[in-house]
């Protein structure tokens, strides 16, 4: 059950939304899609789901294209949240689950256990429009996973949620992965992807700029982060050879350096200048990689 994208391209008129994207997403993996707004994440998802035809290339899951015959195996949480505002949570989920090939009774049992899990069992008979936005999002999430999909596509699953709910949803996603679902999700919050995904792809204006496993990406990136807190001025490090960029902080300075050896050199340089509270060499964050690859234009 490998999801394969081979040289996928999508054009809208003259505009190229996705350009020659090739990916392999292994079974039971969590795969992260990163990209600024308009990078082509949603378009890619829509093509994977078969909502949009590709202009070129091929998308297969277990060797076959995804279409309506496999829809009961696929779960989708769209970026734009949407439920019937006037329908009760229960009717809503049952309807959507039945469209995914589930029996009504089965859907109800699943719904109840999910509602308990999200600590909102009392909302079963409420209309969606009466719920808060965060709770609506939980319901939306339930709608996407209630039929136990083998392939789950989550478009910005955590946007607009408070930290408590983000944690709750993250746990749910991770447990689904444990149960054997292949999960593809997009985010523009680097830390979510960094925390959860083994593999990821950074899209920029439709083309993949980085693609691979998180560790490899970090390793091949080469650059490291260096955090120094000290009692004496560190400004001179800004122009130190091997320092790619720097950011002064209240207590010291954050540096991005070309490699570990630079850190060694810097340490030797400053060790005699005064008291050093902190000297830490860190792996680059995904955020650093993203900014490096996509450009400073991204805030």
């Amino acid at each position: 059950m490998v999801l394969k994208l081979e040289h996928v391209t999508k054009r809208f008129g003259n505009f190229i939304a996705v350009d020659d994207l090739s990916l392999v997403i292994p079974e039971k993996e969590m795969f992260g899609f990163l990209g600024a707004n308009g990078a082509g994440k949603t378009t890619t998802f829509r093509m994977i789901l078969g909502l949009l035809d590709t202009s070129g290339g091929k998308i297969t899951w277990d060797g076959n294209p995804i279409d309506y015959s496999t829809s009961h195996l696929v779960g989708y949480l769209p970026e734009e949240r949407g439920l019937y505002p006037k329908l009760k949570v229960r009717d809503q989920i049952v309807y959507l689950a039945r469209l995914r090939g589930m029996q009504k009774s089965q859907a109800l049992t699943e719904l109840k256990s999910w509602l308990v899990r999200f600590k909102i069992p009392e909302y079963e008979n409420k209309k969606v429009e009466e719920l808060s936005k965060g709770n609506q999002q939980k319901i939306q999430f339930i709608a996407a996973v209630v039929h136990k999909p083998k392939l789950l596509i989550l478009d910005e699953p955590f946007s607009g949620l408070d930290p408590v709910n983000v944690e709750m949803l993250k746990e749910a996603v991770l447990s689904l992965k444990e149960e054997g679902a292949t999960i593809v999700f997009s985010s523009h919050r680097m830390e979510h992807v960094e925390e959860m995904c083994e593999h990821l792809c950074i899209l920029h204006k439709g083309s993949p700029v980085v693609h691979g496993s998180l560790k490899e990406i970090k390793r091949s990136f080469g650059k490291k982060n260096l955090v120094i807190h000290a009692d004496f001025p560190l400004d001179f490090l800004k122009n130190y050879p091997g320092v790619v960029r720097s950011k002064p902080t209240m207590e010291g300075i954050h540096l991005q350096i070309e490699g570990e050896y630079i850190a060694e050199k810097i340490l030797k340089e400053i060790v005699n200048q005064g008291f050093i509270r902190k000297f830490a060499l860190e792996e680059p964050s995904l955020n650093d990689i993203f900014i490096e690859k996509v450009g400073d234009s991204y805030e």
Partner: protein
Amino acid sequence: MNNFWIILFHTYLNKLKTKSFIITTLLTVVIVLVLTNLTNIIDVFDKNNGKENVAVLDETGQLFDSFKKQVSTINKDINLTLFQGSEAAAEKAIEKGTYQGIVLLGLNDEKLPLATYKAKSIADSSLYTDLQTSLQQVKTMLAASQIQLTPVQLEKLYEPVSFKKIALEKNAKTEEELNQARGLVYVLLFIIYFSVIMYANMIAMEVATEKSSRVMEILISSVSPIKQMFAKIIGIGLLSLTQLAVFLSVGYFSLKQNMESLNEGFFGVYGFSDIPLGTIIYAIVFFILGYFLYATLAAFLGSLVSRIEDVQQMITPMTMLVVAGFMIAMFGLGKPDAPFITVTSFIPFFTPMIMFLRVGMLTIPVWEAMVGIAILVATIVFLATFGARVYRGGVLMYGQSNSFKDIKKALQLTKNE
């Protein structure tokens, strides 16, 4: 169960349960009941059992009898009484409600009758018109006798001319049949017109609601848009049939109860007692086809808007088409064989109403009706395939979308470049 049926029944049952649907249905049932029981209701409110008492103050002392005779031939329900007393007393009696009004009869210089009618209000025009007509006849008789015409001569003068109408075409409808057909066609045209506007609107709203609430994207990821569109159209179609069945059965039974009282009035003229089966079948066929035509159009127009507020704007041109068809049909009721009507009956958007008008009112060859139906079916198939493609792209399109350029954009979305 197949997804198609799930959507169909979901649409049907959900709409059936909405408050607005139940209220509209109940209100319309009440209106139907009132209309079919109109004569009974009027009778209930009429204290004098339908009789109208009018006092006559005859200053001449000779006109009352002939006037009364004339009035009774025109309207049996007007009860004339010779009033003995002054005008003021009569006015008091009117105020008390004993009489509806009073007629003061007199003679003018030429010894011909003249009258003044006094009543609380002169809003009841039928009453004084009847009185006036009667007095007119009394005057004619008096004038005739003044110029020494014998009653025989007078009768000759007023005898209506013999005027027969014969249709040469074979199977042409007789005058009576035509009146009957006209009434029936009129009612059915109204039903087609209202249902098409109402239910097409409902479909456009339904699609737009799903789109604006963004639930559409989940839906189309589990069920193909084409399946969805038709499940919705048929679901709402079932709804319309349910509603019509309620109206028609209520109307039918209520009418049957009152058949006797109604046969004399409007319904006697427009004979609903024996409706030709053929007309009914055509009505059903054209109703269903008309519904599908406009429903498909509405569904794909609805798929183009992203906000509910824009729905009305988007389907206005469609509504205009229905209204135009209805207007033409109304004109055609009086002149069903006009060439203009013949031509428009083959234009698909007008066919449901106008071809039905023609089959109902005229005796047209069967093939003409069949050609009309064939054109209609072909248009529906075309609109459905085209509409389904637009729908597929349209439901993914958001933003400022209320122009017909969007049709092109929607088609482009589904295109395999």
